[in-house]
């Protein structure tokens, strides 16, 4: 058996260290190692996007990345988005535009949206839908999620969060 080892990385702005095996997936290191259970395991096969987190500002499926591949990187999970008790503009937009029902897919949706909006501040609806293709929602029918992301784009551009 390969020995357990310590992994150093930055999670939500804080230096963290966690014991892992080489085969440990990033999602397990976050959930089981660091207790950050906001990152969900849905399909566990790289389809549904519930486990999406940001690694060095890019959305990735943390069920399809070894924790060791994130060594030294900056990881952002849903727990790291709010500031001083204030929801992030994307989170607020999801609340205000009914972008969630059961909420299981929401962390992944929001982090994928965050990647999109950091690159494309003026996304049209087809771009939003295309970007969310790797995130499944079984409640909303997506329309309200698209509206939430559109509203979040406006809020981020104008600073009216």
């Amino acid at each position, binding site marked *: *058996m*390969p020995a357990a080892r310590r992994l150093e990385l930055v999670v939500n702005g804080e230096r963290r260290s966690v014991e892992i*095996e*080489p*085969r*440990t*997936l990033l999602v*397990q290191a976050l959930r089981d190692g660091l207790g950050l259970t906001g990152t969900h395991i849905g399909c*566990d*096969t*790289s*389809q549904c*996007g519930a486990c*999406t987190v940001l690694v060095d500002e*890019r*959305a*990735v*499926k943390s069920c*399809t*990345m*070894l924790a*060791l*591949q994130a*060594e030294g990187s900056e990881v952002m999970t849903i727990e790291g988005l709010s500031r001083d008790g204030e929801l992030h503009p994307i989170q607020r937009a999801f609340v205000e535009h009914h972008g969630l029902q059961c909420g299981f897919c929401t962390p992944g949706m929001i982090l*994928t949206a965050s*990647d*999109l909006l950091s690159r494309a501040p003026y996304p049209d609806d087809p771009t939003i839908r*295309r*970007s*969310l*293709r*790797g*995130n499944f929602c079984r409640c909303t029918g997506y329309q309200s999620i698209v509206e939430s992301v559109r509203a979040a784009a406006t809020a981020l551009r104008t600073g009216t969060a």
Partner: protein
Amino acid sequence: MIPAAVEHVRASSLEDAFEALADPEAKALAGGQSLLPVMKLRIFRPSVLVDIGRLELDGMQLGETELRLGSLTTWNKLESAPELERPSLAAISECAAEIGDLQVRNRGTLGGSLAHADPASDMPAVVLALGAQLVLRAADGERTVSAEEFFLGPFTTALTPGELITEVVVPLVDGSGSAYVKVEHPASGFALAGAAAQMTRNGKQRVAVTGVGAHPFLLPEAADPLDALSEAEIYGDRFAPVEYRRHLAGVVVRRALERARERMEEGR
């Protein structure tokens, strides 16, 4: 689901990587978007993962006669690269943009996908149609093979143990147009049938198909592509039986040729 126990070695140089890859049970890990899923399913159990993900193999160089793409270039980079915004290379970004989803494109790499050689993956068709060469490096030197010589069967390539793809070299064909079109499986996004086409001003066309056989392949240049398809050995499964898949292949070939021609004409 977790992979079977495995060692992990981070390569800090190509020499490092070749040393670790000397172990016959070792496997190179790039972005992991193809490899990790098959390891989680325990279809594949290497003893050592040689993590080449941080090697500097992700460059893109547009020269006078060729485009050189580093093997670790991600789909995300390819889909939005200004270097590829020309009719002759448009198929590359068009294809990259259709692969997987945003998260997969952020991590998945050109070289990783070509080495994995899923018979329904998209980019092999494009490298075949554009006449690309693959640069393969090993501890004892470097060799170049054409895309046609590279794909041998399902998940089977000309790579020998311990060898890595370092670059994909695409010759620039002045005034040509290119395109990639697929009909995808609605759940997996893999090509039920995909076609890449290159159309040149002297009327020459190169067409390659993916998702329809044991490996992606180039249609014979001399024959009419649709005639060639009617004689090709086509793969059938529960999603698309042989004759339906042959029909789909004909549709995507025709569309890819039309789009490549339009791009060639616009580029004039």
